[in-house]
């Protein structure tokens, strides 16, 4: 697992690629994203969506 903090204004190409119009914006594996502070459960659910969970079907996409 890797966690990058990216200062959006210094990396405008990344901000544009991921459509960053409000911060904080979280992008996981380029496929799941959300904006703003979220409860831990939401974060975990997003991680499962993005990375898949052992014993469950393969994540689509």
């Amino acid at each position: 697992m890797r966690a990058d903090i990216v200062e959006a204004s210094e990396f405008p190409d990344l901000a544009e690629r991921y459509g960053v119009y409000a911060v904080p914006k979280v992008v996981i594996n380029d496929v799941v994203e959300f904006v703003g502070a979220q409860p831990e459960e939401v974060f975990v659910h997003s991680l499962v969506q993005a990375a898949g969970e052992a014993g469950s079907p393969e994540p689509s996409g």
Partner: protein
Amino acid sequence: MPFLSDQDAAFVRDRLAREMVDPVTLEFFAPTTSGLALPTDDGQIAEYVRQILGEVASLSPLVTLVPVSTLADPERARARGIARTPATAILGAQDYGLRFYGMPAGYEFATLLEMIVAASRGRGELSPSTREVLARLRGDAHIQVFVTPT
């Protein structure tokens, strides 16, 4: 002129002394790390970042700053998965995958402190149920958090 006021420096020194466990290395990646900024905005920003990290390192015996020139040592940047600069890898007893891209100033200075403390303690503040789910993740996860200093 330092980035941190005397009052802020005292706060950082106290927090790191109270909360750190393992030593932390801040590997700072920029094209040049000599203290001579390239004549571009990017070089100027990188020099600011290096100064901020240096001030933090001076406030705790457990924090070490290691500047790495991506021109002189591109292999090291590749090994850390760093393709853009300025970038900082926050390394504890092991590399937990924590990276900060850009300048940790303004509100984001607090983020840098959190990352240092987390790397030093080797664990965050996640609940047991979250840990269970994370342990079952099938694939790798690359989390990018976009922030601004204001």
